[in-house]
């Protein structure tokens, strides 16, 4: 049986996390279908058709799917899903929101946030903020899974898979879209950036984050933050890195004024190289850092920016 993959997109472009999910799916089976559910999203379907390894794109283009409301989208996926052995989505906020609803509608469990595929029914996933790795075997006939993007390479593009229209219009009238505030940024997306520089409570205020933005711009990187920095209102919620925020694994992660609580480490400790800048040499972040600099960030970061 084929595998159904749920595409992550904003009706304009296909999001990178989809490509990592395709790679995970390819380790479970051969026949991969990519579902694009949205509104006015032909563009996304065209991009989806170019993903290597995809044999078919399913396009459900209808205004009822415009905002990816869980009530409508989960019904759509569960109706299509009965014909598949696996249903996969990236562990993005959309995937996390919709897929458990799909699983319950199909009366099967979900395996969340997998980081390795051992076989078509056995997977690894971090538990306890990444302090333990569980190996789980699914006993369900349809395996519903979310995939941690940083654990799998992105699938390449260059394919030309056929696009099939899905004429299912499902509207629950249980929820309605009111508004959205999406941050605009010219920097690379946090979860896909090669370099991430994150600030914590030590940054002191929102203005000081420009220090990090300047370094990020020199390195072509993205800016992240600890929970404390987000809670304090220095930066928006969507750049929180950690157990309950975004998971990142860039080539270079620079933690500035971050103590290194396990909940923060859970979101970044798979980075290739970790740098910590902190004035407290006892800070736990140094125990995971490849390079630690014990210094006042207000001296070290401007100097770093200048010398790069």
């Amino acid at each position: 049986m084929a595998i159904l993959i749920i595409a992550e997109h904003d009706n304009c472009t296909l999001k990178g996390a989809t490509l990592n999910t395709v790679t995970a799916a390819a380790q479970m089976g051969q026949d991969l279908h990519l579902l694009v559910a949205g509104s006015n999203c032909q563009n996304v379907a065209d991009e989806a058709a170019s993903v290597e390894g995809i044999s078919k794109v399913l396009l459900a283009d209808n205004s009822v799917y415009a905002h990816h409301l869980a009530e409508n989208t989960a019904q759509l996926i569960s109706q299509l899903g009965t014909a598949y052995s696996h249903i996969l989505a990236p562990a993005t906020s959309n995937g996390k929101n919709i897929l458990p609803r799909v699983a319950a509608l199909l009366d099967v469990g979900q395996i969340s946030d997998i980081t390795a595929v051992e076989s078509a029914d056995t997977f690894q996933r971090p538990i306890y903020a990444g302090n333990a790795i569980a190996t789980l075997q699914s006993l369900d006939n349809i395996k519903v899974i979310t995939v941690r993007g940083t654990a799998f390479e992105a699938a390449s593009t260059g394919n030309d898979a056929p696009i099939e229209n899905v004429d299912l219009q499902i509207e629950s009238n249980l929820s309605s879209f009111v508004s959205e505030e999406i941050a605009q940024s010219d920097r690379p997306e946090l979860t896909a950036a090669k370099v991430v520089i994150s600030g914590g409570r030590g940054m002191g205020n929102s203005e000081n984050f420009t220090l990090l933005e300047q370094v990020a711009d020199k390195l072509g990187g993205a800016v992240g933050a600890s929970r404390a920095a987000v809670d304090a209102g220095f930066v928006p919620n969507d750049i929180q890195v950690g157990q309950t925020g975004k998971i990142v694994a860039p080539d270079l992660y620079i933690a500035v004024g971050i103590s290194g609580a396990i909940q923060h480490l859970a979101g970044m400790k798979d980075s290739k190289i970790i740098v910590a800048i902190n004035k407290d040499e006892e800070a736990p972040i140094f125990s995971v850092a490849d390079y630690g600099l014990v210094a006042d960030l207000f001296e070290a970061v401007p100097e770093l920016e200048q010398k790069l």
Partner: protein
Amino acid sequence: MKILVAVKRVIDYNAKVRVKADNSNVDLSNTKMAINPFCEIAVEEAIRLKEAGSAQEVVAVSVGPKACQEQIRAALALGADRGIQVETDDNLESLNVAKLLAQVVRDEQPDLIIMGKQAIDSDNNQTGQMLSALLNMPQGTFASEINLQEGEVQVIREIDGGLQTLGLTLPAIITTDLRLNEPRYASLPNIMKAKRKPLAVVTPETLGVELKQHSKLLKVTPPAERSAGILVSSVDELIEKLKNQAKVI
């Protein structure tokens, strides 16, 4: 309005996790346990709605072995009115928890159900969404603000790119994110008072819910260790190492 909040007993977020030597699971013996932080936020939100006059009753429910009565009492000490324990084994899968909660909801008929977005032990982030599916109710996950309106609740959700506001018909299910509120501490008199609040015990059998196993835990291993690197003495040395040793800039 009646609000149902679900609370889970988990390892304290500050406690250290050890994996058992035989790799069968984590070792929680002699580990400090607590109410899951996201569930605590759920309880706080329900109590605030009650204090604001929007809700009349807050019922706290937990699914688990007898020990989880401690977490129900903790919710009662924060201000919930009564508790329900669904007596089960430990480590129930999310769908089974959702099925048990669904029956409690059918019996209790709350207008709003508030629960944590994820438990910090399994990190699954599933139960609220599954419960919504089983009850065919709308879901407002990862909530950072809740506004009750006439026959509707508006939820501001933390999503990947920023914030999204949804309107949900009632009854609805909301899962909490970190910034919904900052939970209070229970006062000593309230902790004493909580001991006398009603706490009912039900079982999957009395609820008429059949549990099913959906996955098998094959093993639990410690994560790959990351060893500490070196301390550099200056920004110059840092840049030199990143360029020539790590080759990442």
